[in-house]
């Protein structure tokens, strides 16, 4: 393992994982000196009965915990008005803590609410930027219901201001939830076409954390474990959705990948993925599945040796040992492409393999070819571009997106390579 010359790493989230870990919520709240939580979630989560599970777990306990109010109307594109509304409700009902249940949107929203209610402020915008939050916030418990974003482990909240057409990022260690509850029951009902891309998002977090510039030893280990858990469980879960052990494993993979990328950042897969989300409203995980092999491919001359090491968790030790070092980087990429193929098959074609294949519910193509330039322009201004091993200018971005659109590998001759730093020679 390389000794990183300098790194910072922080995972100040207490994690409780198991098939019955919801039952730990009351004690966790007591430990945080809280007894009047508010639940923040979205309609999708409450409709499938997951909030009921949380309520039951709290009712069962002898601790005097009372859920003061449930807000289950967080929209998919939550913004500052929702945050303000919920904060008002929190204060009116005399809450002292938040339990947020859901995917990325309820979690980001809850983090925003927690800033307002803890700082007793009206204007969220005064807390943007590093170091703006200067005190511990009120207790926050996060319960993920998709295994992908890893938001339960991250210190970021992205909150939009639709009126100004802006997205603001809030970063502070105080935004890390106090407790993350990983319970297999919370993802059991997630349909396959959502399980697949969200897990691929987690896989992307792990692979990018391991190969990008801000890698560090603890992120590396977390990433390797995450990949192994996904390898052992993703396809099984797609085939047997009620496999509780598999679900729990994926929830852990997502959290581990969250730990990894929150401390080492992500690279160009997210750079382009965010842009595709912004321009064409493609779900994040869908873009990640498709782009992951392209990101690894583009950076091969810089970090091929690291991509090669990913083969161990991706393929298992026997296959890894059987493949010579110089072939491993490409093999890793091939396995990820194959995984996308397998998921495509297992979901009856609902898991997309390339950008031109992505369709919305009505069946219309979501990424028309003429949007590629717009996507590339937007991508240029995504913060994750800083952490990618190789530079990407507009021309490079367009070249990569075009390849991913067609579903063909990158033409390596077209990559403007800076000095090679990969420790294995890549055999093409």
């Amino acid at each position, binding site marked *: 393992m390389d000794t990183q010359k300098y*790194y910072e790493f922080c995972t100040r989230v207490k994690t409780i994982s198991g098939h019955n870990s919801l039952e730990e919520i009351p004690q966790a709240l007591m430990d945080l000196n809280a007894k009047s939580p508010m639940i923040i979630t979205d309609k999708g989560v409450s409709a499938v009965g997951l909030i009921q599970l949380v309520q039951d777990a709290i009712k069962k306990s002898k601790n005097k915990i009372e859920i003061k109010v449930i807000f289950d109307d967080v929209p998919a594109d939550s913004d500052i008005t929702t945050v303000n509304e919920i904060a008002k409700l929190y204060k009116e009902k005399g809450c002292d803590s938040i339990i947020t249940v859901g995917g990325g949107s309820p979690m980001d929203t809850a983090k925003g609410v927690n800033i307002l209610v803890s700082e007793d402020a009206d204007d969220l915008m005064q807390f943007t*930027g*590093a*170091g703006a939050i200067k005190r511990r916030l009120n207790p926050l418990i996060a319960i993920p219901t998709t295994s992908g974003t890893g938001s339960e482990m991250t210190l970021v909240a992205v909150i939009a201001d639709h009126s100004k057409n802006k997205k603001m990022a809030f970063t502070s260690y105080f935004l890390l939830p106090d407790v993350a509850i990983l319970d297999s029951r919370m993802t059991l009902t997630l349909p396959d076409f959502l399980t697949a891309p969200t897990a691929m998002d987690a896989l992307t977090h792990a692979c990018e954390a391991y190969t990008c*510039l801000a890698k560090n030893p603890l992120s590396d280990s977390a990433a390797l474990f995450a990949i192994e858990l996904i390898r052992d469980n993703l396809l099984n879960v797609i085939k047997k959705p009620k496999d509780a052990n598999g679900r729990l494993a994926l929830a852990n993979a997502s959290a581990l990948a969250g730990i990894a990328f929150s401390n080492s950042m992500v690279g160009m897969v997210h750079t382009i993925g965010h842009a595709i989300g912004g321009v064409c409203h493609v779900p994040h995980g869908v873009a990640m599945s498709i782009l992951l092999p392209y990101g690894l491919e583009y950076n091969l001359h810089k970090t091929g040796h690291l991509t090669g090491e990913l083969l161990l968790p991706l393929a298992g030790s026997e296959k890894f040992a059987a493949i010579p070092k110089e072939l491993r980087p490409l093999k890793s990429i091939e396995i990820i492409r194959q995984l996308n193929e397998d998921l495509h098959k297992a979901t009856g074609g609902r898991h997309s393999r390339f950008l031109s294949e992505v369709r919305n519910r009505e069946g219309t193509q979501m990424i028309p070819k003429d949007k590629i330039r717009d996507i590339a322009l937007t991508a240029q201004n995504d913060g994750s571009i*800083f952490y990618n*091993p190789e530079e990407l*200018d507009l021309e490079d971005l367009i070249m990569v997106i075009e390849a991913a659109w067609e579903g063909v590998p990158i033409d390596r001759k077209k990559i*403007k390579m800076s000095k090679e730093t990969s420790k294995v020679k890549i055999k093409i």
Partner: protein
Amino acid sequence: MRIENYPEIIPGKNPFKKIYLAIFLWITGRAIQAAARTDRVVKKEFEMLPDDFMLYLGVSPNGPGFVVGKDSNGKAKYMGAKLKGKSITLKMIIKNIEAAFLVFTFQESTAVGFAHDRFMVSGNLDEACRIGRVLDIVEIYLLPKIITKLAVKRYPNWKQMSPIRKHVGRVIIYTRAILGF
């Protein structure tokens, strides 16, 4: 225990590094203004920034640093070394003098500096990315290739930046950076 035996201690100062950084940042600030008027790409990046854009790039906690913003004509303008009384839209602060010294003596490239968590960025991330690219280009103009190669990820080849553009541009930016017109 006698409390007087354990006095308060006020840590010292390191004037040499601070002066180096002050000069380096002064030149860089000026050079951004100059480059925004000379270099096509930088000019374009600046055009894309909002009208109220104002950058502070400096060292925590007490500087040095510089402010570059847009003037009333929408042109890039060096606005001095002090934060006070300016409404900054993008703050890029290096965590301490030693870290700044590592980055601005190119022992750590800007990219590695980011990877090493040396910077605290607040404000619009869009703007930070544009400024990141502007800084890369400014460094290419200001510094000899051998040093700039340490600072940026990929040094442009002639296809991307013609030698004429670079050398003529460099002279203009140098003079403008120092003379400040």
